[in-house]
Structures are given as structure tokens and as C-alpha cells.
């Protein structure tokens, strides 16, 4: 297995390195610390006063009805919202204590450390190999690319299925395989965090379960945040769940806010808020 090229944060696998070990002991255990997050699209107040802490090596799930801002919040974690011209983010999103929206922070660099997997599998129209190699290449990876491709595919539980067809188009794969390819592609740049925006919503149930299994395996190496409209999925995979809801503001616009954030077992067996219970029991609205 090749050396991770730009990993910053120690994982259990790398505990031998004393330097960052000592360092992390003094750090807060939260990978992300979000306070008073407000997101606007032009005049539209999309997300209001969100505060969450995301812990290392946990799977944190964001659930809630459509329009509740869960994806918007997720996209603040790697500054994908920057790509929308009218978007404006207020409040602080701290990543290992560093303000992601600080003045000298380069969003391109941020995204190299915080990987993302999207709703629909979106492989590049290139070979399987080149899909994985794209990220490392643009980041100037100098090591053995073959090894990196193999280890990334292996970690995404795809190596055995594709090792003989690495030069074929990624479109030859099934939807579930494509999504695992996208996960492998995200892993290949050695991120610390994986953001997953409804990663299984375009997949059939069995492929969905395989992705969920994969997430369980990946969480020993990565911190994972998943947005899902499927609360059963959140129930199955996550350690902590944040429930977002929509409310109408004074202008009659739909604004998302955080209702409850707790351990997933608590959220799904004994939620503190009535709104949460109504949502997860399907008595919403």
C-alpha cells in the first residue's frame, strides 16, 4: 500500500507517528465545529443558526425533509457552495480548529483534504484507472500510481471486481459499482473526511446496503458525514444524527434549521423533540 500523500490527521493505523499523536491529544476531538452557521442564496435565507460538532472516526448523518438545508450545510464543509455565485456563508465552520472561511484559505486546497461523494454516481467518462488517478495527478502525486489505484479500489471494496478491466470505461460498471468507484476516487487523494451527499439514493436496495457496509469499514480511517433523505439509512449507518427541519420565515420563505443532534440510537428510539419524533415516525406536518 502506498503512503497517503497528503493526510494531515493521524488515524489509528498511523498511531506510530509520535509528533501528530502528541498534537492530537491537545486538540479538541471534533473534526468540524460549526457554530451559528447561516447560508444565504441572494436574499434567500437557506439555513439558519446551525451548530454541530462532528467527531473523528464517526459517521454523522444529516436527515430531514427536502429543503431543510441538510445538503447546503454539507456543502459548507468543503466550500462547494463557493461554486454558486449568489451563495453567502456566515458563522464559523472550523476544521481541526481552522476557520474554513478564513481569509487565506484556498477552497481548492480544502477540497483536496475533504473528499466528496455525490448523489448520483458521477464517474468521469474515462477509464476506471484514470478516474482514480485524476485527483492524485492534479495534486501532483509523485509516488507509484498503480499502487495508489489498487489500494484505493481495494479500500472501496471494488478491486476484486475491476482489477482485470482497469482500462475499460467507468460507464461499463453497474450503478452500485460506479458509486464505489466514486468513493475510491475520493479516497485516492487521501482525504481526512468524506462528505456523502445522498450517496445511495440513485441505487437499488442491495447496492445501497453494500455502500452502507463500505461506510462502516471506512469509518475506521475516515470521518464521514452523510446527507440522506432516507432516515432508515441514517438509522442503519450513523453514530450521530442531526435532524433538520424547515420553517417559514417572516418573508414566507422556507428556511432550514437544526432541530436535534444526538446519538443515532437516541434519535431513533427516544428523540427529545416532538418534531423529530413526528418526522421519524412519519407523522410529519
Amino acid at each position, binding site marked *: 500500500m502506498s503512503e497517503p500523500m497528503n493526510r494531515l490527521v493521524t488515524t489509528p493505523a498511523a498511531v506510530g507517528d509520535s509528533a501528530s499523536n502528541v498534537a492530537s491529544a491537545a486538540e479538541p476531538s471534533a473534526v468540524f465545529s460549526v457554530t451559528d452557521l447561516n447560508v444565504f442564496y441572494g436574499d434567500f435565507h437557506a439555513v439558519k443558526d446551525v451548530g454541530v460538532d462532528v467527531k473523528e472516526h464517526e459517521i454523522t448523518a444529516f436527515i430531514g425533509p427536502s429543503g431543510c438545508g441538510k445538503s447546503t450545510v454539507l456543502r459548507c464543509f*468543503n466550500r*462547494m457552495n463557493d*461554486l454558486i*455565485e449568489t451563495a453567502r456563508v456566515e458563522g464559523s465552520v472550523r476544521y481541526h480548529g481552522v476557520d474554513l472561511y478564513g481569509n487565506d484559505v484556498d477552497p*481548492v*486546497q*480544502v*477540497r*483536496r*483534504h475533504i*473528499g*466528496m*461523494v*455525490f*448523489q*448520483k454516481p*458521477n*464517474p*468521469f*467518462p*474515462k477509464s476506471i484507472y484514470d478516474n482514480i488517478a*485524476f*485527483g492524485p495527478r*492534479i*495534486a501532483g502525486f509523485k509516488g507509484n500510481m498503480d499502487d495508489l489505484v489498487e489500494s484505493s479500489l481495494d479500500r472501496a471494496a471494488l478491486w476484486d471486481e475491476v482489477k482485470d478491466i482497469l482500462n475499460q470505461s467507468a*460507464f461499463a460498471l453497474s450503478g452500485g459499482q460506479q458509486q464505489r468507484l*466514486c468513493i475510491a*476516487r*475520493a479516497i485516492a*487523494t487521501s482525504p481526512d473526511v468524506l462528505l456523502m451527499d445522498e450517496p445511495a439514493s440513485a441505487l437499488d436496495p442491495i447496492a445501497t446496503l453494500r455502500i452502507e457496509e463500505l461506510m462502516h469499514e471506512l469509518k475506521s480511517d475516515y470521518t464521514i458525514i452523510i446527507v440522506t433523505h432516507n432516515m432508515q439509512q441514517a438509522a442503519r449507518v450513523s453514530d450521530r444524527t442531526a435532524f433538520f427541519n424547515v420553517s417559514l420565515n417572516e418573508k414566507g420563505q422556507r428556511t432550514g434549521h437544526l432541530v436535534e443532534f444526538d446519538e443515532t440510537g437516541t434519535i431513533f428510539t427516544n428523540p427529545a423533540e416532538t418534531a423529530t419524533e413526528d418526522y421519524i415516525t412519519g407523522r410529519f406536518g
Partner: protein
Amino acid sequence: MTTAAIDLSGDPKRKRRERRVRVVFQAAAVFSVLVSAAIVLSLIGKALGFLLEIDLSQLWADGWFPRRGRFDLRTIIWHTLVVSAIAMVVATPLGLGAAMYLSEYASPRSRRILKPTLEMLAGIPSVVLGFFALKFITPNVLTTIFPGTQQSNLLAAGIGVGILIIPLVASVSEDAMRAVPIALREASYGLGAQKWRTSLSVVFPAALSGIVASLILGLSRAIGETMVVAIAAGATGGSLLQVNPLNGGQTMTGAMASLAIGSDQVVGEAGTFDSLFFVGLLLFFMTLALNIASERFVKRFRQRY
């Protein structure tokens, strides 16, 4: 109580009207097909007549002088290729650059202004560009750079044709680039790629078959473009094979136009006027092949997304 039997046979009047309407539309479709058959037949008949009339060795004669019975295909095909190549050299970078700017860089607002303006270029009739090439590009641009430029020359015609096909190349390849799913761009940004990298390494290759289609289509248009070459390249009777694009020369369409202009007073050897149909048929098949090729590329692109 019993239910009365339900009549499901339908209103006969309504049924007759349906049939009539269908026949009308069918007739329109059939007529359209007949037109295409008419084109091919009218070409083939006279083209064959031309081949029977002339001494076939004259197709490889010295120069294109139809009134003297010399029909050297190499001359006009070569000149056509020269003009088309120049046109592509002009249109490819400008068209693709404009397409990528509009698709990837322009804000919605500037796109709303730039795109229709570019389309205006597409609306300029080719006679206008021919005149522009003859009376502006040649005297004001080319003679300044290359003092030996003839008044009618292939280079000016090629540039004029190139300008004419910029909007076509731009609009087809912009469609192809815009059809690349946003998801692919997001995937690229999500991996930490910059905008330029995303545009060049992800969007461009993903849209490649559509871009190739746009270039083939542009080439097809360039080969078939008549008025610009007729005005700016020197469509005055005959011509010898010409290697220097700064000199005038006869292209396939230019040759056709010049025969057409003289159509009521064409005199000369046998087949002089009918050579028009032979060249037309040749042109028809060349552009047909290119259009089919372009269609293939578009189809490949469509299947993907």
C-alpha cells in the same frame, strides 16, 4: 336492475375525421421524401449524362476550364480543401474558445448578451461575408501583411468562410459542453481541481465527441459554402491548380457558381454546363458523408448522457 350494454365501438364520424387528418399529414411526409429523391435523381441523371458526353481523361486534365472541355477535378478539389482548411484554422480556436467561455466561464448575465450577439454572426448572409472578404479582409488586412496578395485569393475566402462557421462550431460544441452533467464538474471540484483544470481535463474530454461533431459539421459547411468563394476567391471562368493561397483559384462551389452565372450564355465544348451537375453530385456526397459522420459523433455523445 341490469346494466345496459356499453357501446365501445365509438363514433364513426370521429373515426372518419381521424383517418382524414392522418392521410393529410402522411401526404406531407411523403412529399418531403419525394423532394429528397428528386434532388438525387436530378443530380445523378445529368451527372451521368456529363460523364458520357466528355472524354473522361479530361477529369485529370490541366486546370479547370469547362468552356474548353478541361475538367480537372484535382484543381477544384484541392482549392476547396485549401479554403476549408483555412476556414477550420480560423473557426476551430475561435469557435471552441467561445464555446468554452460561454459554457464554463460566462456568468448567466454576460451569457445572455454574448450568445445572441454571436448568433447574429450566424445570421449574416454569405454574400455579405464574401463582399467583406473581398473589400475589407483582402485590401485592409492581407495586402498589409502579404504585399503580393492578389485581389481575389483563397486566403481571404477561407477566412470569410471561417468567420461564417464560427457560430456553428461554437453553438454545437457549446451544446455539447453544457450537456456534460454538472455532476461531473462537481466531482472534479470535489477532488480539489481548479476551474481551468475542470474545464480542460473533465468537461472538454467529456464533450469531445460533440466537439468533433461540431468541427465536422463546420467542415461540411465550409466545403459547401458558395457565395464567399464566388465573390472573394475569383470565380471568373477557369483556373489552374494553385498552391499559394494568396492567389485566386476555383473551388468546387466557386466553379458551380461561375457556371451558373454564365448559364444562359454558356458556350463551349460538350458537357460544359452539365459539369455543374457532376460537381454538384460530388459535393452532395462529400457533405453527406461528413454530415453522417457528424451525426454519428453526436449520437455517441447523446448515448453517454
